[in-house]
Each structure stands twice: as structure tokens, then as C-alpha cells.
């Protein structure tokens, strides 16, 4: 079992504290969204600080799993959106921020980005004091191509240590693709039947920034809101469709699902298809138009008779 070295996180934490203190003191930002320690050993929770004194609470660790970008979207009204806001971002989180900028939700000049040279964080529902290994690491980290974020305002010293590990999503997608439609149907039916419609997947998603989700509407009711198999199925299909071409791959939906539904598989599958169809990939460049808000006259239409 490969252990992943996260000793650099201690120095990174120190650097975050110092930088947060500085930007809050000199008025560069009005608030910093970051991570702070929680009660359970090794556990971490998001925090919003507005005073230099609170900067000492900030840290980065293997438990810093959240994508904090969600706090800057319109769906999160609790954080004042006035002035410039500092935010601690891993590479995956940064991709989401970039996506939000492309969708006119955020402006770069209103953000102060503290990028993390990240070797990886823990997976879903894992005791927070567990060591980071190839078994406990979040599956998204195995596919990460932005361990070292770029274009940030501040990046602490430190080089991410990223051993070559087996990628899980690609293999799982390939496995499912090889099944018959009926087998895939029963796989997803079983998974979706667990869904309790707590909407944690939606609430943590940086791209679910709609103030009124289409699935919350009842006139007309586009999706059955009851957590029955039929409504669950429709919800997850529509969620995946709405995120197609937008999802930045932070896998928060999958991490937070209390019923362990492998939601990111759907998102990764869509990403794979959009890469194949339109050469689209979520990255660190701001694109005003996503793959589904533009077209090329020569787009593939082999499926249309």
C-alpha cells in the first residue's frame, strides 16, 4: 500500500495563516474562505474569517476535502459578496472557480486566490485521522492534473508529492460501458434507489448555483420530488445533464452523498464523452462558452438519420 507524503501541509498551513493575516490586515480582502480544524481528530471544516486575528485558525491538511468555491456562488447567500474575497483553493477547486468565471458568476478581480500545492486529500466518509494512502485518498486525486495550481495570487512553497497510482474512474466507466444496457440499468437503479433526496450533491456543487433549482419547481413539475426510485432516477439523470460540459471534476457530489452513490462516475462519463465529441475539457482557462452553448456546423451527427 502506497503512503502519500503530506508533511508539506504543515508548512503550507503556516504560509496560509501568514498570507491571510497580511491580506486581511492591509485590506486587500474583506474575508477569507479557508479550512479550520474541527473537534474530531484530524477533521477539518470550512470557515469564513473576516479579521486578521482569526487567521491563525486557518490550515490545510489531508482532511481539507471541501471545494470552497461553492461559498462564492449565488446559491450561498450567507457570505457577503462585497469587496474582494480570499479563498483557499486546491487545483480541482480552482477549475470550478474558473468555470464559474466563464459563466459570469464570479470576476477574477474580486478574488484573491491562495493556491495549494496539493498531494491529495482523504476520500469520502473516511475517519479524518486516517493516514493518506492509495486506499484512503479521494479517487479524484488519482486523476488530478493540477496538483500545482497556476494563476493564483499566492501559492505557498511546497512541491506536491504524487506517486503514480491506479486511476479508478476510468476503469469503472470502462467496466460499466462493457455491460449490456439492462445490466447498466440495474446497476444504476440499485444505486439511485438508495437516494433520499437530501440534495447534498446539489448543495455542494459549485455549478448548481441556480437560486431556484428546476427540480424544486412544481409548476410544472419537471422531476418528481419524492425520493422514490422513479423520481430519484430522473433527478440524477437531469443533474448529470445539467453539469455536462460544466463540471470541473471536484467530485464533491460523490464525496458528500450519505448513501455512497457514485455520482462522479456520471460526471466523468459525460466529461469523457464531451472530450471525444467536442474536445472539451475543464481546465484553468476561462471560456465564455461551454461545449453545449456553442456548436460547429461540422459537429458529429452520425447518430441522426
Amino acid at each position: 500500500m502506497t503512503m502519500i507524503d503530506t508533511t508539506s501541509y504543515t508548512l503550507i498551513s503556516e504560509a496560509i495563516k501568514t498570507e491571510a493575516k497580511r491580506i486581511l490586515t492591509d485590506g486587500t480582502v474583506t474575508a477569507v474562505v479557508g479550512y479550520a480544524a474541527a473537534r474530531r481528530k484530524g477533521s477539518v471544516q470550512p470557515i469564513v474569517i473576516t479579521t486578521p486575528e482569526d487567521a491563525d485558525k486557518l490550515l490545510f491538511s489531508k482532511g481539507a476535502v471541501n471545494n470552497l468555491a461553492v461559498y462564492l456562488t449565488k446559491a450561498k447567500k450567507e457570505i457577503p459578496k462585497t469587496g474582494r474575497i480570499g479563498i483557499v483553493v486546491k487545483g480541482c477547486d480552482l477549475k470550478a472557480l474558473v468555470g464559474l468565471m466563464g459563466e459570469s458568476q464570479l470576476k477574477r478581480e474580486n478574488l484573491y486566490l491562495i493556491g495549494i500545492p496539493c498531494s491529495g486529500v482523504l476520500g469520502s466518509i473516511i475517519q479524518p485521522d486516517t493516514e493518506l494512502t492509495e486506499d484512503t485518498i479521494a479517487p479524484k486525486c488519482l486523476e488530478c492534473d493540477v496538483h500545482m495550481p497556476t494563476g493564483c495570487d499566492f501559492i505557498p512553497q511546497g512541491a506536491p508529492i504524487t506517486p503514480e497510482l491506479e486511476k479508478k474512474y476510468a476503469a469503472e466507466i470502462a467496466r460499466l460501458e462493457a455491460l449490456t444496457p439492462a445490466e447498466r440499468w440495474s446497476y444504476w437503479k440499485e444505486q439511485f434507489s438508495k437516494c433520499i433526496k437530501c440534495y447534498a450533491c446539489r448543495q455542494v456543487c459549485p455549478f448548481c448555483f441556480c437560486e431556484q433549482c428546476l427540480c424544486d419547481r412544481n409548476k410544472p413539475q419537471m422531476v418528481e420530488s419524492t425520493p422514490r426510485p422513479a423520481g430519484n432516477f430522473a433527478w440524477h439523470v437531469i443533474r448529470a445533464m445539467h453539469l455536462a460540459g460544466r463540471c470541473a471534476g471536484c467530485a464533491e457530489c460523490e464525496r458528500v452523498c450519505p448513501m455512497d452513490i457514485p455520482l462522479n462516475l456520471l460526471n466523468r462519463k459525460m466529461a469523457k464523452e464531451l472530450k471525444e465529441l467536442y474536445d472539451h475539457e475543464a481546465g484553468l482557462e476561462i471560456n465564455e462558452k461551454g461545449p453545449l452553448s456553442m456548436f460547429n456546423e461540422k459537429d458529429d451527427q452520425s447518430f441522426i438519420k
Partner: protein
Amino acid sequence: MQKFITEQNFNTLIDRLIGAGKRVVAPKLNAGTVLYEPLSGSGEMVLDQLPRRSGKEAFFPLCEDIVSYEKEGQKVKLTDIDPALFPETLLVAVRPCDTAAIPVLDAVFSWDYKDQFFLERRNKTTIIGLACTSSDDACFCTAVGISPDDRRGSDLFMTQLEGGGYLCETHSEKGEALLTAHAELFTEPNSQKAKPLAKPEVEKVDLQKVKAWLDNNFEDPAWDSIATRCVGCGACAFVCPACHCFDIVDEGTEKSGKRRKNWDACGFWKFTHHASGHNPRDGQPKRYRNRIMHKFKYYDDKFGQTLCTGCGRCIRLCPVGIDIAEIVGDISRKN
């Protein structure tokens, strides 16, 4: 009444009950997740893990139909669901933190309005509790006055013994009836020692002090720092053994449809959203405050109990690491 049952006989008992057409609900693996679900055989039981959701579903379903309608011409035909037809159920291997929540639910569903749906299902359910022998750092039953071998809510309570098998103890007529009906599977208790109980590493919280602070601090800046991070999902409420809010929704088409009772959660923005568009709880801090207030003050005001049994599910599953044990602990230390 106290009796002993071997693991094998326990399995036989389960299989017999299933064979007799009873619905036996126990922790079971479903697509990788342990949940209380109906068994098709005793082999499916998973006894070493706390299920992801509590067993309250057995009498307070995630969603249930109340009435259905069908339009025919200009007439509407309504069909009520008759609670008398609900199935007899055994809820097996329920952890004390889940069973302890059952009297709490009983109280609220049989208060001024008697909820026929809940009560009928509840009456038809026999609950077999199981003592906890392990815990993790999210468990905090002892902090809120519940023990890993708490008998509250159980008709029959089982304790694992060192040498295998369970010590069974009846706590109601239902429990005794079950034991009597299958007496041949049980023997008299022996001198075997019980497995050591779980010991959650938490301090006991002075719930009176918590309530006292809540009584006076509806408006307090602390709520912001506690719950600004809340993203407004319903995970905490839906995995909680004691949360019992529901929503009535009508779903269907012009032709036919159903009125359903679905779980609801006070974390949702829609929970208090008025038809006018106004929302008195206009932010997550206010919504989360309601969760704490309801659990440690409002419910106490009404029923003299706390609406939290310390199962720790919401702590483990909160997407943003909100820790109710920490929050309540902090409050209890305030003046």
C-alpha cells in the same frame, strides 16, 4: 424475562419469521451501503456496522402514499390508504441510539393529533435492540444521556456475549410474545459475560445548561459562526433517528396522482418558504439554529426530552463538517 439464544438459533428465528410472511427489517448491505432493509434471509444481516440511516423508516417511511386520486370525466375519485393493511414488521438489530429515538417519535406522533399512519405501523412493529460494542469518534450517545446498552424503545434487547450468542431481555408484551412463540429456540441464560460495551470518548453534556442558554439566545452572533458554512442540504435530518418533519406533496398528472408524505428537512430553503416568496428563515444560520433549537429546546419544552440520541450520523455525513456534539458541548460551557 431473560433468555439466551445462540447465533445459529437467532438466524433460524429470523428465517422462520421471514418464512411466516413477516417483514423482517435489519441492517443489510445495499449496493455497498449498510441500511435497515427487509431481509430475504438471515444471511443478509450485517451486525458490525451502524446502518447509514436510522430504523425510523419502519414506521415513518421516507415517503408514503396517503391518498390517490383519479379523474374520470368531470368527477374526481379519491382512494384512501387504509392503515389497517400495513404489514407486520420486525425491526431487528437496532442500535440503542436508534431505539432510544422511537419513544421520542411516539410522543410527537400521538400528541394532539394521532397520526394513524405512524401509529399503525408502529403498533405492528416489534423492535429488537442490540447493544453496541464499538464506537467511533463521532458517537456521542453518552454525552446526551443514552448508553450503548440503552433499553429504551426496544421490545426485546440483545447483548452479545463473549463466548458467542446473545442474552435476550424482554421489555414489552410484544417482546415476550415473540420469545414465547419461539421458545424452543431460546434457553435459560448462562453465566457468560457480556462483551464490553462501547465507550464513546465524550464528556457528558449538561442538557439543562444547554437548554437554559438556548432559552435566552435565539439571537446570538454565535449562530453565524456555527452555520455560515452550512450548505443547506438535508443529509443531517434524513439520517437522524429522531428528526420527524415531513412534507405533504401531490404528485401526478391531470389524470391521476397521489398525495404523499415525504421526509423534509429544516435545512432546506424551501422548508419555510412562503407562497408569497417571503422566507422568515432567510439564511442557513437561521435554519441550522432551528435544528439545534428543536432538538434541545422546543422538543424539551413540549415533551420534556431531547431530540438527539447521539448516534453521530449527522457528524459523519455533514458535507461541511458541522459537528452537533461540538456545538452542544460549546453551548453547555457558555455561561
